[in-house]
């Protein structure tokens, strides 16, 4: 086999180790679902969550079943207890990133 000539190109990048598991099932029915709202603690974030909640009301979501959660710091993951509470007490969670 002939030796390759020229200038080699090496890939300096690292790909993320992404879990191939699929997203949670969507059954298309929002009525009766317990929704969690995770506010990242950035100003205005809670308003966005409430706006989304109201928009989903028209699709059958009951805002009375909503629970609100908040990260302690916007730049850090939420506490484990917060994730545990959402996993136990919610059927779906809405969050957002950014300023």
């Amino acid at each position: 086999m002939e030796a390759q000539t020229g200038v080699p190109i090496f890939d300096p990048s690292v790909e993320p180790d992404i879990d191939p598991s699929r997203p949670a099932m969507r059954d298309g029915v929002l009525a009766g679902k317990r929704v969690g709202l995770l506010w990242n603690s950035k100003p205005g974030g809670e308003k966005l969550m409430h706006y989304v909640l109201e928009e989903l009301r028209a699709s059958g979501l009951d805002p009375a079943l909503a629970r609100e959660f908040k990260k302690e710091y916007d730049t850090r993951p939420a506490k484990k207890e917060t994730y545990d509470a959402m996993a136990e007490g919610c059927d779906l969670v809405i969050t957002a990133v950014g300023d």
Partner: protein
Amino acid sequence: MEPASWTEDTHSAIEEYHRRGWTDGLPVVPPTGERVAEFLAVGGMAEDETLFHLAERRRSVPAGKVALNAVMAGCLPGYMPVLLAALEAMADPDYNLHSSAASTGGAAPLMVVNGPVRTEIGLNMGGNIFGPGHRANAAIGRAIRLVLINCIGAVPHLLDRSTQGNPGKYSFTFAEYEEASPWEPLSAEKGFEAGRSTVALLATEGPHNIQNHYGRARGILDTAAHTMSSLGSMSAGQSFIVFSPEHAALIAKEFRDKRAVKEYLFDRSGVPEALLRETGKITTPAWGETPGRVPHALDPEDIWIAVAGGEAGGHSAWIPSWSRRRNGVTVMRPVLSAGERRAKKKE
């Protein structure tokens, strides 16, 4: 290490790295397998040995990729121990690499180097420390940026959402001018043994000039305190003050140690809480213990002091952290030789 592809010549290779988005916008040095091996040998790591893992990005960064980016940045093999220490410091959760690299705040990794390695590899500590002209300063800082882009995905407009960023994102590395400092060097102040080279990393804004050509100790420090009271930079957290040798010598005539300087600055810097509220800077309770005055630092020890710059000129710099309320703090690490790193791995 196998190439991903081949090109005809050096110019084509440089264009290929651009085309694939693997640069910081400037041309890179096309690496070779032999060159990468040299870097790894001086660093004391194997190609597939993980240097750090960033859980939020789901990425484990091997030493081989760090070496590739270091060659691309224009580093010399002797820079690898400093670069490896820098990345280890940045991977410490206290530094907050994921958020600082993604934030609209546009943080740059500021690095201060202490100890014998400064002169061993030609790091600039004198005039023009924040400017061009010295390979070690330029290339090591650049290598950090290339690792962030290529290895943790901090690509502008994607996972780097800086609104404007700052020029330090190209490279923001300098050495402390220990020989011109009237105080103990940063490494000694923070408890490292004499003769140990260290790196200190903090995610920061760009430098704010502290200009005072005619004042004496208190005049210079009052100028610094006023600079630290910048409304635009008022987010509680750590900061660096880099005093020029001239300023440091004048200050030291009255302030014998860094602690005295820090306390003076802490007591005299800050903005009125009312101003923070009127301008919409804060909507939550202000921090600080002095009623009505909100300091930048949460504690005098949030103010880190180093001495560097040309021996003439009344210019120092205040460099505030990116973070709010210490969500990213300064992290220091020792610079390990290849032998020390291999020995540590065996432990």
